[in-house]
């Protein structure tokens, strides 16, 4: 019907988008390059690094941070933070530890109860943020302190100390353990089940973000909330769902660390919330929301896991890890900032 000739004038002829540009447009490219560089670096300086047992160790470390980093990345793409994510891993572990060793609750029931509690706390975080319009940074900082306080006070009240003991002796421990704390032998390497969880979580998160309606909504609420609302996206539901997802991931990591070590302390997970955010940012997530990827966050966690173990294998003072983290974070933020100004550039 239209008689209007196709035009795309305005600023000159259209330039084709090359394959290189397409690849560089992905948020996780920087993290992939950095991960490869770090792998090569530590393989060169530490003999143990690329041995089967070495790989198993840093993969396990990366997986526990990676599961959370992926969930936190989704939340950050949705424009929010969760500072209670680290404390959540401790709180869920403690809940299972205390109810089973202290009150004789069945382990399976305790594990499910912890999931329900985690989802409820996540929903509370979400509802508070959505209803009040306060920055999630503040709301979840509050939740973080509440959880940290309860972790210490309640456990002390029950045991008179801040760690759960004798968890490995509770009935049915062995029936749950393979699910969260199991180890699989693959060609001489001991790979934790947590690595499989890590892969599964990353794959599902990627699929949800890029191939579902919910994923579309996550990018939209983080990128331009008012525009999302105007086009009919259920902003509140999307954000509450994201907080619940992060809480559920906290539960999963809590179970993994509980069943791997058979013990849990009140301080477990405290401070890790910033590591998750760093992994997500190194993986290409913008702090302002609306941009990032699950694969990027997973690569960020891999970088963290490799460096953490690499520093040990190389025989260096482990405090170098933090200096390194700081440099990575700054570099990532600078790169992301540059990417965003290019992507957002309005003509």
């Amino acid at each position: 019907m239209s008689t209007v000739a196709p035009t795309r004038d305005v600023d000159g002829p259209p330039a084709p988008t090359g394959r290189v540009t397409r690849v560089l447009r992905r948020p996780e490219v920087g993290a992939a390059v950095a991960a490869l560089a770090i792998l090569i670096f530590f393989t060169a300086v530490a003999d143990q690094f690329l041995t089967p047992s070495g790989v198993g160790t840093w993969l396990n470390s990366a997986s526990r941070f990676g599961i959370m980093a992926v969930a936190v990345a989704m939340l950050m793409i949705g424009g929010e933070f969760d500072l209670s994510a680290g404390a959540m891993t401790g709180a869920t572990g403690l809940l299972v530890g205390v109810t089973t060793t202290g009150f004789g609750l069945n382990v399976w029931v305790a594990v499910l109860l912890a999931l329900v509690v985690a989802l409820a706390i996540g929903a509370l975080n979400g509802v508070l943020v959505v209803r009040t319009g306060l920055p999630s940074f503040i709301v979840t900082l509050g939740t973080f302190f509440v959880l940290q306080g309860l972790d210490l006070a309640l456990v002390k009240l029950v045991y008179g100390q801040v760690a759960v003991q004798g968890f490995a002796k509770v009935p049915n421990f062995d029936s749950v353990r393979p699910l969260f704390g199991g180890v699989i032998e693959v060609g001489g390497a001991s790979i934790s089940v947590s690595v499989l969880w890590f892969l599964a979580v990353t794959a599902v998160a990627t699929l949800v973000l890029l191939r579902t309606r919910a994923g579309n909504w996550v990018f939209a609420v983080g990128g331009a909330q008012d525009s999302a609302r105007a086009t009919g996206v259920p902003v509140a539901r999307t954000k509450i769902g994201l907080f619940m997802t992060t809480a559920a991931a906290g539960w999963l990591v809590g179970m993994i660390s509980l069943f791997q070590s058979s013990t849990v302390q009140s301080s477990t997970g405290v401070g890790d919330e910033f590591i998750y955010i760093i992994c997500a940012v190194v993986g290409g997530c913008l702090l302002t929301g609306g941009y990032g990827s699950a694969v990027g966050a997973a690569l960020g966690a891999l970088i963290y896991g490799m460096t953490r173990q690499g520093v040990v294998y190389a025989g260096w003072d482990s405090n170098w890890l933090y200096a390194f983290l700081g440099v990575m974070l700054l570099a990532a933020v600078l790169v992301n900032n540059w990417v965003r100004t290019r992507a957002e550039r309005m003509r």
Partner: protein
Amino acid sequence: MTTDTTAPLIEVTDLGKTYGSVVALRGVTTTVRAGQVTCVLGDNGAGKSTFIKILAGAHEHSEGTYRVDGVEQHMSSPRDALALGIATVFQDLAVVPLMPVWRNFFLGSELRKGPFGMLDVGLMKQTAKDEMAAMGIDLRDVDQPIGTLSGGERQCVAIARAVHLGARVLILDEPTAALGVRQSGVVLRYIAAARERGLGVVFITHNPHHAYPVGDRFLVLRRGRSIAEREKAEVSRDELTTLMSGGAELDALAHELERDPLLG
């Protein structure tokens, strides 16, 4: 161009709106027909935004009648208007700058397939590309973030989206206000394209030089009142300009108009 060949999609008679004792709009009568452009002209504070808020369903009118397809309506939310096929493209466009064009195009109305309700990415990309092409926009890549498009192009994506999602009447709130002359020309072309596709268009502007070339009917508002409602045949560009405000400042705009190839 004759104006009575099609039944009016929208017909307002003596439409008015008061907020308490403040009269924001009074005595507005006009029609919007399929395949025609009704221009609403007026300076800032003339009542344009009150008028479109009533048409868009955001505010309910307090006087007169508002008929859609001949049936009187009292709308209380933009959703009511959308259900009747009346879509409004506001100045901020409701786009997410960092998201690809195709995702923006279908945001809130995503196409899904399969048992798990996965996005039908291929169909969505192709549809977005085709719809844009039908509006005369040749996008090299629907995967680019919409923020990288020019202001005029983004406006056009928003228009094409509204058309695709079933709009019969398109209300455009000052689409050319923030644009330069060339970009404005691009947007005017797409307004013409929407008209060619048989849509009724309500084009709000304070610039008679943008309104005249595409308009079929002109409604001029001043201080909340309708001071003129004319068909194109009844009014010349100069008369329209004079109705709007008149004065020497418009000579400069007339100059701008002469050089716009669209108006030749």
